[in-house]
């Protein structure tokens, strides 16, 4: 296995009596596309929120590229190389598309963000919409803008929280090509409900249920795993 870029040990977060994330060990290999799946309420979003720092860790540790970041603030983690794209599209609706991406670029680089901003917009095919207010873009385009912002941060790890939700078939194809182009320069952690996307894109898959890790493996291994079939894939495969 390639070197580990992001690792979690015994990661735990309870909300009252609810064990949202309960002692999860997890390794993300450099350059892979890793999908995180599991039934609704399995703790996927809480888990990546712990990784990105949006929710404080109760116990356990997180290391990025060998450095402990367990107590690092969310904004500092972004600068350290963990980018998070929101499950519910969260672009600056009242700002131009250009400014949305420029904000990500200038978080990373000094000087005029224009050239890098244009490059990021071209990469997701929104180059001709820079002047438009982000809120007036179609839903699919807003998701692409969200990804462009994540890419413009030039992250080591890009976390995508249900990126294809609400996208049309054609848009999903574009999106898959985009995610494939991100690796192996960066590493992608993907929460996704669409099994076709997961099986097609992911190099490895981790399954969460009830806040615990049930299995990790290649798509074929996960498909063949009887525990996983029972817990999750049972009714869809």
């Amino acid at each position: 296995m390639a070197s580990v870029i992001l690792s979690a040990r015994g990661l735990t977060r309870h909300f009252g009596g609810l064990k949202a994330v309960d002692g999860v060990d997890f390794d993300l290999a450099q350059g892979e596309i890793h999908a995180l799946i599991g039934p609704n309420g399995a703790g996927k979003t809480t888990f990546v929120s712990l990784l990105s720092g949006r929710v404080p860790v109760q116990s356990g540790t997180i290391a990025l590229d060998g450095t402990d970041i367990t107590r690092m603030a969310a904004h500092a983690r972004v600068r350290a190389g963990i980018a998070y794209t929101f499950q519910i599209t969260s672009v600056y609706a009242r700002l131009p598309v250009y400014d949305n991406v420029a904000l990500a670029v200038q978080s990373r680089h000094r000087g005029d963000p224009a050239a890098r901003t244009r490059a990021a917009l071209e990469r997701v095919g929104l180059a001709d919409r820079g002047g438009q207010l982000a809120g007036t873009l179609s839903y699919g385009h807003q998701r692409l803008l969200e990804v462009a912002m994540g890419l413009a941060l030039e992250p080591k790890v890009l976390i995508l929280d249900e990126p294809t939700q609400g996208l049309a078939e054609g848009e999903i194809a574009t999106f898959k090509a985009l995610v494939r182009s991100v690796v192996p320069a960066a590493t992608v952690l993907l929460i996704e409900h669409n099994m076709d996307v997961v099986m097609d894109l992911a190099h490895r898959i981790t399954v969460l249920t009830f806040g615990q890790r049930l299995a990790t493996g290649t798509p074929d291994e996960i498909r063949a795993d009887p525990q996983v079939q029972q817990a999750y894939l049972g009714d869809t495969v």
Partner: protein
Amino acid sequence: MKTLALPLALPLALPLALLALLAAATLLLPPYHEGNLARIMLLATYAMGYNIAFGYTGLLSLGHALFFGAGMYAAGMAAEYGGVPAAPGLALGLLGGGAMALAVGLLALRTSGVSFLIVTMMFAQAGYLTILYNTDVTRGEEGIVLAAALRRIAGFDLAQDDTRYLAAFAIFAVGLIAQALLVRSRFGRVMVAMRENEERSRMLGYSPYRVKLIALVISGLYAGVAGAAYALLFGYMGAGFAAIQNSIAPLLWVLLGGAGTVLGPFLGTAAMFYLTDLAASLTTATLLVTGVALLLLVLFAPKGILGTIRDRWAPWLP
């Protein structure tokens, strides 16, 4: 995308045009209006500071009178008791306002929204009461009239109409250009981002606390220098300037002129000043006129004069 990569010329064109107009006004206006405009320019400087915090960064404060008062009393007390001349007095006021904003911000910015509004108001109220409590040195509500000898810069008498106008103009001009450049800068973009979506901005790597603190301190610098200049140019400081009414005032001016617009603070301050002036010649109930004007504003142009113009007709407006 071209419209966004504008050279600096256009964003600066309107502020420069306004400054040219104000420079010309000194030659044309009768002394009464000259005095009014000097006042308006200083109060508009205060309002621009408020606009940087509220209009651009989304910080709804009700404590800015504390920053204005800090500047006013820093300069005024130094002059009255230390004989400090006007030029260093202005610098003291600038720093006084900024330092006060830093101190308040360090604590108050742990809250947001309505809590932030209440906490800033409490701080300002504490400042106001401190001035009243120490009446033996501040003379409280009655205030202190600064002697003309203290109000001189480089041999020019600030009590004289034309020099006073020019001094107010100089401060306003620097403040206006600085504001126009700030909001076009990289940091200006981050301020707006914080206003629009704090959580998103955090996840782009910006510390909300740090960005808001810097914006609040810049805002405090504006309020401080405006307060100091007000004391030195008009020769009076009093506790009333640190009272809650003077925290609400810049909010109203900015709302009227257009929050988050470069010229809105000046326009709002001037409009409210002359509206009150006009009302005073008709009735003693000037607050009623102000109230009606604000009601109309909220009902028909909630984004203020320039905000509405920008939305409807001129999206390029800075």
